[in-house]
Every structure is written in structure tokens, then in C-alpha cells.
């Protein structure tokens, strides 16, 4: 049986990206034919500006060379314009008569530059700025002529003007607006940009209306005349006043068009056999002209073409950067402000820095940065996430480094200023140069792609912000943001929130049932989603959902912590850090008997036996006669304490006993990530409660509770939750908070991430202000923990024996 035929009209970035996405999903599904009106394979149109500026060559910006088309058995018709779609016989016809039949047709006809309808627009030397030919024409003109006028002070116009200037021409930018880039910048930033471009030798005519282009005797343009009557000499006129979606072909085929080809969320047109992606499309009333949305569309169209049908395109939020080397500007969202918005503005004209943040209803809704854009990606992230900013508002303007967030270990958040040899990802030893090279050479566009390809930010994730900045700086406006509702993994499109909700609402109690109900793409998931699902199931339906050991990471399956050489570490429970002679004696005996290579005191006030062989684990536990310290799990770890009022001359409460009580209460508790507590007997805080998930500090009149602290990858100071009077209240409030975290946080989020997501107000409202919800949460925690057995004890009694016993083969 022959394969269905897919025809692509438009050999540009959006169309070919769709093919790439399709080949990744279903490599041999279609016979593919591609028509392109330009005599080139697919190239990166965005990088024409660096080519014009002489910073790159045409060869460097080719994305898919002819070999690529050959490898994928694509019939490629370059330099052929499709002039007709015959929808009845399902074929397309090119102007030279070439025909191709289709079962599925993909239109990616892009856009046309808008040409001002002024007299003289057809003169020689009047061009637009759209493709390789225009770029070459400009480069050629720069060698023969001296004066250029660029009509249009938008991104494209300024990039063209900058390029022509660098090629030695006198360049004047004519712009009808009051300031440059009025759609991307506010007036102040626009004026600063103008000043800085003027320093580079560009000239400007603002609020000027072009009336006519005057020609010489050879039919070549010689001057531009304005409505004011003034004339400006020019042998080259570049029209960069905007683009118009190119939908002539689609319209003539009877497809519904309105300022673009109308498509639905699966990128299908009026005729469902015909898809459309890219700049030619009108999706929910918007035509996009930047690459990131086009690539999102490509993904969705490819998904539908591959008969998977779970992708939906729902529109994009955009940000802008100007690709003129040495000029940094960034804007996103509603940077112009308006009614009901507030501005935070930093203006330092002599340093060439201007920043404006627009805030509405406690959320960042727009940002316009000039001169220093290093925090652009961070603002863009805040904008997309729409997170409340009240708590960081006072230092929001000073960027990510002065705020929480992921900026690396040493506060090096200025990715731009970093050297190629500077290390970005400390976990995987990846330098900036490696990342930049991978982005350029492998054509990476998203954070996930960089993670996969370079491993940067793929371990602890603390450098995620830096990597995003590098991506942004390297790609400019091609940058494709990480979607807000990130899928759990490649096995599904559902986010953690969706999965939690489905498990709760559909009462799902097993991994296979959950995967079935949520249309998992793989039959048994992967190492990423299964542990998450397992946690969501057992935390949502305690005593109903059955824990699946095969879906747990080895540490939680074996109840010990795997080490680099495959041995394990054993940390017995030592509540509140309190031990006694008998326990210490047994630990010493075990260390001798099993020749434990290293015995070490941990940061959590316990003792770690390192280098125990897996097959010895159960007997080690038996000889220890102590409970599991859960030092290996996404679970309760330890409650660190100080000496407290029993001995310490400053102690105000019995913090040690409080710690022991909390650790007893929380024993065997699984959680989205590890959970550490501390109790200090006075505000000197010797137990370091300020960096714990739940920190308790005794004062004379009671106990102060702090939540969301973290001493790990990025140090986070715990935030004050409330003050309570009695020890019982400490247990109830901290238990209720931990249950809230267990029920609502996403898998592998620490309490600080959860707290940042939902906000302190919400937590206070559930835990402090409403006694009913607090008590209900606390009861649910106690219910979930009730009856759980110590895992070491269970294994000493024979549970899951085969996990620990190696197989010894024998001859058949």
C-alpha cells in the first residue's frame, strides 16, 4: 500500500519545522513534496540581519541543506511558486505547470512585505527586506551607491539600517511614528535608542510621511520626497513598514481567510485536509510574525498530521529583542501601561539604562528594558507565570539576582557578561561556550532541548535561569519560552496540576488506571512520570492506592541511599539527634562486623554508615535494632534540635522534646520532596530553623513557626507563618502545613517552590485563619500516617526479600 501524500507549500521556517517535528513523531508516514518560491533550501530568515551586517554568511544561516531533503526522501521543488490548489482533485499546481497530488496539504506561505502605495514604488533600487535576494540586493547596492533611506522604524527597518550603515552607506531612517519601535518601546526608551543609533551615524526623520519616490533617467530611484516637500537623496530605498500575511493562494482555493488563513487550534483550515502554519495564519484573530509562536504551531500541526491529535495551539505571549550588536533592548507584554496599571521606572540616561515595569493587580504585565536587558528572561518568566509580586515588589526592579530564583551558585546572573570558559552548570561541568555552540550548531530553541543536548541544567536545575538567559541572548527573538504548564514528561501532555486533579476527581488508585484514564502515550511510562504518579496516588488515596516499588527510585525501593560505587549508606533514626550508649554500641558493632568503610556524623544530627553492600542491608538493620531514618527518600528526613531549656542557660522551651515529638508524629511520611524540620529553643536558633521546610523557634511566650526554608541548591530563608502557644499547636499547625504541601505540591517541588507558587497569603488562610481547614488537614495527615510500618522492620520480617538477594547461577 502506498503512503499518503503530504504536500508543503512554502519552504520556510514554519513549514520545514513542521516536517521536522513530524519526522520525529512518525518518520515514514508520508510521501512528502515541498514547493518553495525561493531558489534556496530552508534558511533562518531571522539571521538575515547579521548577514546584512556582515557578521554571518548565507551558508551559516541555512537550517536544512539539500542533503537533509534527500535523507528524508522529500521531493523538493525550489524556485517554483504554487499558483493553484485544486481541492476537488486534491492537487496543487505550480505556475510552471508542475503538479502534485496530496492527501494532506500544509500551507506555510508566510507573509509579504507591505509596499507603500506611493508613486515611484516600482523604481529600480526600491526594495523590501524579506529574503536572501533582498539581502544580496542591499549588499550589492552598498558597494555602488552612497545614500540609503529605510522607510520604517520598526525592528526590521532598524536592523536593515544598521546593516547598511555598517556596509558604508549614509542611512536615514524615515518613520511615521513619534519615536522608534513604538510597538515595542515606550517613548523614553525609544528616544534613548534613537540617540544611541544616532551616535553610530544613523540619521532619522520622525513623524515624516513619504509622499513620492523620485527616479532618474535610468529608472532608478534618486530621492525621497516627503509630504512637507523636503527631498532626501537616495539610490536605495528599503521598505520595512510591515508584513502582510500571504494568503492569496488559500483565498483563491476558497479557504476562509481574514487577514490570514483562518485555522483552528489544531492548525486546520476550513478544509480539514489542509493545514496552515506560520505567518500566513490567523489564529484566534492574531497573525504572528515572530518565530517562537510559529514553532509552537509547527509542533501542533505535526502532532495532528502524525494522527496523534493531542496537541493544541492556544496562542502565545511574545517578547522582543533587537538584533543590532551592541544595543540591548527588550520588551514584553503591555509595556505601555494604561488605566489601572502602575509603573516602576528606573531611568539613568547618562549610563544609558532605562527600565520600566508595568504592574496590574499585583502582577507584572509588561516590561520594557533598554541598556541592561540581562533580567529580561526573568521578567518574561514572571509575566508568563502571572505570579503575585507583592513580596518581591520592593526589589523587583533590581532584577533576579536580588530576588529569589534560579541564578546559579555564585550570583552570576549576567549571562551576557560571562566568558565562554565560565562554568554554567556545576553539576555536569558545562561551560557557556559549550551551550552557545550547541544552540547555534544544533539549532536548539528551547530550554528542554539545551538540557537534553548539553546536560546543562539537567541535574540540580539551579542554573536554569542562566541557561535561559544564554538561550535568549543567543537566539534573540527566536527564543522559545518554556511553557507554563509543562508536561510531566514525554509520556503525556498533562501537567502535574492536571495529573493531580484527575487522580483526585476520578478516584484513580493505580498507575495503570491513571495512565489509561489520562491517555498516557507509553504503556508503562518512564523513570520520570512513574515515581510522580506513584506519589500522587498514595498521597491522594492513602490506604487505598497500593505503593508500587518498581515505580520508586532505588533508594526508596531499597530503603537506603545508593552511592557512586553501587554500595549503600545506612542512617538509622535518631529522633531529635538524641542517642544513647546502647545505640552507639550497636552502631560500632555493626561497623566492625560489616567492615563499614566510613562512619560519619550527618548534618541532620545522625550517624551515617557508608559503603554497605546491598546484600548486607537487611542484616545490618537487624543488628542495629533501630528504625529507618528515611535519609534516602522524598519523605520526612529529620528534625534537628538544639539542647533547649533542659540544659541550655538561654533555652526558653524544651526544644529537644518538641523535635522528638514531631519526628515521632511524622515517621514514615512520604512527601513530594524531602522534608526537613528543626526546633530551636531560643531565637539564637542553634538548630538553624531558618533554612528548614518547617522551622520552629521557641520564645518565652510560645513557639514561632517558619516555613519554606531550604539550605540546599539555592539557600532560602524560611518565612514566618505564625506564632502559637502550646506544643500541641506546634504539632497541629506544622502537620497541617505539611499535609497541605503533600496534597497540593507538584512532585519534586520543595516547600519553598510550593510556597512561591501559591503564595504565603493562601497558606496563612488555610492554616492560620481557618481552624476548620487546619484541623481537617491535620486529621488527614494523621489518617495517612496511621498504621504505617517502619520499612526496615518490615524487611527484617521478610518483606520484599528478593530485592536484596543476588542470583547465583548454576550450569544447566
Amino acid at each position: 500500500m502506498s503512503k499518503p501524500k503530504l504536500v508543503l507549500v512554502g519552504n520556510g521556517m514554519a513549514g520545514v519545522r513542521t516536517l521536522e517535528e513530524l519526522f520525529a513523531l512518525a518518520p515514514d508516514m508520508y510521501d512528502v513534496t515541498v514547493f518553495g518560491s525561493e531558489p534556496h533550501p530552508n534558511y533562518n530568515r531571522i539571521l538575515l540581519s547579521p548577514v546584512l551586517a556582515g557578521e554571518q554568511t548565507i551558508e551559516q544561516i541555512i537550517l536544512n541543506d539539500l542533503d537533509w531533503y534527500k535523507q528524508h526522501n522529500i521531493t523538493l521543488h525550489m524556485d517554483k511558486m504554487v499558483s493553484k490548489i485544486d481541492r476537488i482533485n486534491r492537487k496543487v499546481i505550480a505556475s510552471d505547470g508542475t503538479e502534485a497530488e496530496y492527501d494532506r496539504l500544509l500551507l506555510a506561505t508566510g507573509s509579504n512585505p507591505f509596499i507603500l502605495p506611493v508613486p515611484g514604488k516600482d523604481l529600480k533600487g526600491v526594495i523590501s527586506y524579506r529574503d536572501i535576494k533582498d539581502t544580496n540586493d542591499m549588499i550589492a547596492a552598498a558597494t555602488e551607491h552612497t545614500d540609503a533611506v529605510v522607510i520604517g522604524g520598526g525592528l526590521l527597518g532598524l536592523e536593515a539600517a544598521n546593516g547598511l550603515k555598517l556596509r558604508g552607506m549614509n542611512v536615514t531612517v524615515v518613520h511615521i511614528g513619534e519615536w522608534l519601535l513604538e510597538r515595542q518601546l515606550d517613548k523614553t526608551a525609544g528616544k534613548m535608542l534613537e540617540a544611541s543609533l544616532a551616535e553610530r551615524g544613523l540619521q532619522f526623520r520622525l513623524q515624516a510621511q513619504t509622499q513620492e519616490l523620485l527616479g532618474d533617467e535610468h529608472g532608478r530611484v534618486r530621492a525621497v520626497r516627503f509630504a512637507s516637500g523636503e527631498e532626501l537623496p537616495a539610490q536605495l530605498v528599503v521598505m520595512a513598514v510591515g508584513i502582510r500575511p500571504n494568503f492569496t493562494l488559500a483565498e483563491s482555493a476558497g479557504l476562509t481567510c481574514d487577514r490570514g488563513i483562518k485555522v483552528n487550534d489544531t492548525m486546520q483550515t476550513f478544509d480539514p485536509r489542509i493545514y496552515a502554519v506560520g505567518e500566513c495564519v490567523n489564529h484566534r484573530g492574531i497573525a504572528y510574525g515572530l518565530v517562537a509562536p510559529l514553532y509552537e504551531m509547527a509542533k501542533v500541526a505535526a502532532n495532528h498530521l502524525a494522527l496523534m491529535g493531542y496537541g493544541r495551539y492556544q496562542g502565545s505571549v511574545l517578547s522582543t529583542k533587537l538584533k543590532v550588536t551592541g544595543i540591548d533592548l527588550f520588551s514584553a507584554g503591555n509595556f505601555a501601561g494604561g488605566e489601572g496599571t502602575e509603573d516602576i521606572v528606573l531611568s539613568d540616561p547618562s549610563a544609558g539604562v532605562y527600565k520600566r515595569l508595568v504592574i496590574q493587580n499585583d502582577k507584572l504585565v509588561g516590561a520594557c528594558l533598554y541598556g541592561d536587558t540581562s533580567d529580561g528572561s526573568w521578567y518574561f518568566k514572571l509575566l508568563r507565570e502571572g505570579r503575585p509580586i507583592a513580596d518581591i515588589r520592593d526589589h523587583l526592579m533590581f532584577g533576579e539576582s536580588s530576588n529569589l530564583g534560579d541564578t546559579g551558585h555564585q550570583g552570576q546572573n549576567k549571562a551576557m557578561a560571562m566568558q565562554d570558559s565560565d562554568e554554567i552548570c556545576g553539576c555536569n561541568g558545562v561551560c557557556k561556550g559549550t551551550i552557545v555552540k550547541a544552540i547555534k550548531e544544533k539549532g536548539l530553541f528551547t530550554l528542554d532541548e539545551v538540557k537534553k543536548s548539553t546536560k546543562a541544567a539537567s541535574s540540580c536545575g539551579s542554573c536554569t535561569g542562566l541557561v535561559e538567559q544564554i538561550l535568549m541572548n543567543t537566539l534573540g527573538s527566536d527564543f522559545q519560552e518554556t511553557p507554563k504548564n509543562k508536561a510531566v514528561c514525554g509520556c503525556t501532555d498533562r501537567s502535574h496540576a492536571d495529573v493531580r486533579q484527575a487522580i483526585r476527581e476520578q478516584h484513580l488508585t493505580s498507575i495503570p488506571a491513571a495512565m489509561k484514564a489520562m491517555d498516557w502515550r507509553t504503556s508503562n511510562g518512564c523513570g520520570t512520570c512513574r515515581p510522580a504518579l506513584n506519589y500522587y496516588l498514595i498521597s491522594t488515596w492513602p490506604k487505598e492506592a497500593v505503593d508500587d516499588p518498581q515505580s520508586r527510585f532505588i533508594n526508596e525501593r531499597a530503603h537506603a541511599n545508593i552511592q557512586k560505587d553501587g554500595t549503600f549508606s545506612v542512617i538509622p533514626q535518631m529522633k531529635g539527634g538524641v542517642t544513647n550508649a546502647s545505640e552507639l554500641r550497636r552502631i560500632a558493632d555493626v561497623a566492625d562486623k560489616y567492615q563499614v568503610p566510613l562512619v560519619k556524623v550527618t548534618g541532620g544530627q545522625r550517624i551515617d554508615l557508608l559503603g554497605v553492600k546491598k546484600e548486607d542491608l537487611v542484616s545490618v538493620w537487624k543488628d542495629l535494632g533501630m528504625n529507618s531514618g528515611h535519609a534516602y527518600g522524598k519523605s520526612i528526613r529529620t528534625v534537628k534540635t538544639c539542647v533547649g531549656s533542659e540544659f541550655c542557660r538561654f533555652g526558653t522551651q524544651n526544644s529537644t522534646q518538641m523535635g522528638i515529638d514531631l519526628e515521632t508524629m511524622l515517621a514514615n511520611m512520604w512527601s513530594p520532596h524531602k522534608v526537613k524540620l528543626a526546633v530551636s529553643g531560643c531565637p539564637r536558633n542553634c538548630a538553624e530553623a531558618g533554612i528548614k521546610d518547617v522551622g520552629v523557634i521557641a520564645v518565652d511566650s510560645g513557639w514561632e513557626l517558619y516555613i519554606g526554608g531550604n539550605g540546599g541548591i539555592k539557600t532560602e530563608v524560611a518565612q514566618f507563618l505564625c506564632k502559637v502557644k502550646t506544643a500541641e499547636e506546634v504539632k497541629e499547625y506544622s502537620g497541617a502545613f505539611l499535609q497541605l504541601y503533600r496534597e497540593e505540591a507538584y512532585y519534586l517541588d520543595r516547600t519553598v517552590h510550593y510556597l512561591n507558587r501559591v503564595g504565603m497569603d493562601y497558606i496563612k488562610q488555610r492554616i492560620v485563619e481557618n481552624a476548620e481547614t487546619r484541623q481537617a488537614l491535620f486529621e488527614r495527615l494523621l489518617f495517612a500516617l496511621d498504621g504505617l510500618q517502619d520499612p526496615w522492620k518490615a524487611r527484617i520480617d521478610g518483606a520484599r526479600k528478593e530485592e536484596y538477594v543476588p542470583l547465583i547461577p548454576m550450569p544447566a
Partner: protein
Amino acid sequence: MSEWIVVCQVTDIPKLGARVVKESGKDDIAVFRTETDQVFALTDRCPHKGGPLSQGIVYGENVACPLHNWQISLSSGEACAPDEGCAGKHPVKVEGGTVYLLRQVTA
């Protein structure tokens, strides 16, 4: 010369799990069982930093190394792109529910 040696019953290996085969003087071998009861055997060393693959999470026909989460194909032993490397693959067969490994024997 080589011979088939008995390792265990298929049911001794947990579904979506693995067991490690230890023989003195030889590299450990990990035997895996998939959801569909296919059995694979690889040298129990991740090509990355030698992690014991037998301790990883098994999914589809892959295992995720417990040390740094490299994804290794059970059928070939090859690391999944973009990682590169191969854990040695061992001939294995299942007959009547018994798992056999082919081992070299010095005569």
C-alpha cells in the same frame, strides 16, 4: 566454548524490575523483566560512570541508570541519544519459565 546456565525463574524477577547475577571473578550481570515478560541481560555497569543498571527504573524496553539517569536500551545496551555509550549485552533465553544466560567457559 560456551554454555547455557540457569539463572532463575522469570517470576523471580519483578515485572518492570531487575535482579543482579553475581559470579565470583566475573562482572555482575543485570537481568531485566519488562511489562510483557521479555527478559534482557546487560553488564551491570552504566557506560557513563559505572552505575549498577540493575538498580534502575525499568520502563518499556529501557532502564534509567540510578546514578545520573542515563537511559539505556535493554535490547541493545546502547545509551539513548544524546548520550553515547554501550553497556555490554549478554545472550539470554527463557524456556519453560526458566531464564538462561550464555556464558563463556574455559575448557
